[in-house]
């Protein structure tokens, strides 16, 4: 029986979209994976020596903060780790016994990325402990307990996944605990530390996490087994819909029609919500660069572009893929391409303006910094907004709106054309800024960047006609691509 399951899993793994990419991309991905593996290993190994250098007892310090480690882990899981129940639907009516199906799905979660990553920290750390002459048996018992706790979180996540608001509760607990600790009101680590220390020093304490894990497995097993019905655990959650007319947008004519639709698109889909959430993070990108003497000044404009361009880069780069699931409708309706592109352009521009206003907190760093951001915003509106739409003509990855995955970049949407387009998007302003600073002073540099934006804006109509032509040329290929899995 299990062999059949493993066969299915293997097929789903090797035939997943990320494997269907080109060889060059596979090599690139391989290198990335290798890079991160080395990075994590270095962290696991390095943690011991860094803590030691800071005159702290490495093991005790780690034990002290493990409580936060596991709470954060649970929060991250609740946010991101999906429980793999959906793909058991077709198996229900086949000659598999229900317990077998449940055991298998639970076993599958054990191999999840969210569990494996912990090994990258705990394994090297344990090995360093052994190397440094800590008692081998204690180290083994301690790391066993750690993995038991990691898996406790894994099953807790399954049990808690369908409960609403729990995430908020956990985040609140974590924040309150951290706050109390920071203001020295109450220190949870003082209570957690003896337990984690005991896992190492007392030989039998490791029994607790292992027993808890066994109990949780049993509980999860029964929970899932009883829930293995299409109308129970296997339902797809349906939202209660509310009709919104957004009539105030009617005054903008066709543009308003599309904007209405785009606002609903963003509000009602997981993927777009995550994307917009990510774009807010861009607002804080400047904090790395401004008032940071280790960064060359010419990079300020780089930050300026990013601060206001979060939405442009995260949302804009997937136009028109956002409409991929109903692209055929768009192509047969009474819509001129230009109107469609125009509405997307306005959406990006409005978001850029809002970001620029929100970024006014950078005024705290001085007028010059904020001017950099404004210049970046002008460049974004005048030049980058067009480039992003142009890149969209070559982006042929359908977007599954209901998935939050891939919001931080899609491997398949990498292609030579979009890569080349990032050059003018990011490096041209840096070059202009450098040129101005070199000729006179940074102010001229900013003026150059802003001027490029204004010029782009002035030639908007010409540029739009060009982009429209390219979209028309790519139309059939795009429809074809979106049909693959829309």
């Amino acid at each position, binding site marked *: 029986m299990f062999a059949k399951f493993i066969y299915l899993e293997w097929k789903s793994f090797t035939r997943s979209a990320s494997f269907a990419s080109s060889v060059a991309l596979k090599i690139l991905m391989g290198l990335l994976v290798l890079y991160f593996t080395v990075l994590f290993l270095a962290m696991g190994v390095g943690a011991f020596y860094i803590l030691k250098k800071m005159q702290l007892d490495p093991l005790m310090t780690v034990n002290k903060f493990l409580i936060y480690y596991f709470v954060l882990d649970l929060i991250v899981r609740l946010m991101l780790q999906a429980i793999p129940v959906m793909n058991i639907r077709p198996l229900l009516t086949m000659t598999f016994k229900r317990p077998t199906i449940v055991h298998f799905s639970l076993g599958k979660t054990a191999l999840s990325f969210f569990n494996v990553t912990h090994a990258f920290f705990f394994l090297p750390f344990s090995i360093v402990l052994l190397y440094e002459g800590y008692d081998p048996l204690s180290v083994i018992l301690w790391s066993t307990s750690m993995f038991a706790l990691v898996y406790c979180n894994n099953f807790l996540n399954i049990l808690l996944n369908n409960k609403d608001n729990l995430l908020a509760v956990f985040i609140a607990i974590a924040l309150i605990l951290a706050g109390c600790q920071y203001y020295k009101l109450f220190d949870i680590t003082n209570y957690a530390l003896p337990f984690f220390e005991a896992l190492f020093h007392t030989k039998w304490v490791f029994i607790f996490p292992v027993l808890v894990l066994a109990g949780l497995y049993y509980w999860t097993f029964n929970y899932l087994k009883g829930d293995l019905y299409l109308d129970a655990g296997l339902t797809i959650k349906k939202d209660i819909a509310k009709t919104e007319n957004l009539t105030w947008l009617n005054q903008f004519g066709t543009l308003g029609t599309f904007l209405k639709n785009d606002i609903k698109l963003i509000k009602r889909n997981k993927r777009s919500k995550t994307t917009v959430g990510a774009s807010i993070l861009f607002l804080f990108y400047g904090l790395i660069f401004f008032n940071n003497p280790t960064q060359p000044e010419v990079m300020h404009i780089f930050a300026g572009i990013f601060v206001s361009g979060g939405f442009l880069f995260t949302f804009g780069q997937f136009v028109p893929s956002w409409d991929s699931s109903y692209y055929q*409708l768009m192509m047969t309706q009474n819509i001129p391409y230009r109107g469609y592109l125009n509405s997307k352009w306005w959406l990006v521009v409005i978001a850029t303006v809002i970001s620029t206003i929100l970024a006014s907190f950078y005024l705290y760093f001085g007028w010059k910094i904020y001017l950099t951001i404004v210049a970046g915003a002008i460049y974004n509106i005048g030049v980058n907004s067009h480039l992003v739409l142009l890149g969209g003509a070559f982006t042929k990855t359908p977007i599954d709106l209901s998935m939050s995955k891939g919001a931080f970049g899609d491997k398949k949407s990498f292609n030579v054309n979009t890569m080349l387009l990032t050059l003018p998007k990011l490096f041209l302003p840096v070059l202009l800024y450098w040129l101005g600073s070199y000729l006179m002073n940074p102010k001229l540099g900013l003026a150059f960047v802003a001027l490029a934006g204004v010029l782009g804006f002035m030639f908007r109509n010409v540029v739009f006609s060009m982009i429209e032509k390219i979209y028309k040329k790519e139309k059939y290929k795009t429809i074809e691509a979106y049909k693959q899995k829309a």
Partner: protein
Amino acid sequence: MIQVNNLTKKYNDTAVLNIESLEIPKGQSLGLVGNNGAGKTTFFSLLLDLIQPSTGNILNNGIQVNTSEDWKPFTASFLDESFLIGYLTPEEYFYFIGDLRGQNKADVDVLLAQHEEFFNGEILKNKKYLRDLSKGNQKKVGIIATLIGNPEVIILDEPFANLDPTTVNRLKKIIKELADNPNVTVLVSSHDLQHTVEVCDRIVALNKGELVKDMLTSKETLQELELFFAV
């Protein structure tokens, strides 16, 4: 209204559609029948400029569809769920299409009221997004949306599939009414010979991309078709 000239569509040298000539006069209702892979959807996709012809062309009211977009204002179509916007409620979807076709909210509401029976109380004000509706109900939304804005050409791919018997009868009534309107040209494809014969003035049968039968509907049509598709 619609004129097809030497139209072929090939994928890697395999011809999936080959229609030398077909003319559909204004006001006619045409039923397209054929087995899976006969080329029905391919023909509609070509007619809507969703795929490119290998040779030949289609004129819709004198406008060549793959060179000009001017056929869009008077042509409405529903091929499959990819014509629906999943995150909208049915009402929002209707108003969206209405906006695109120059109909205001009141116009759309009048049309929806006419088809309340067809919706059977399962569509409007149900607090559901289109993506959460059943296949049949999604189809109802898609079909009625094609009627918004009094289009002159209406294209429906497999409209009878996935619908319950009552709704099929109501849909037949709607299509018949459209067929009786001398300004509206209707194109319907189906696997179901009987339904098609009942609502269409003319039946065209496709087989492996070739036009094999073309007849005006009469008493004997159904029999003839059944004989043709008999095993």
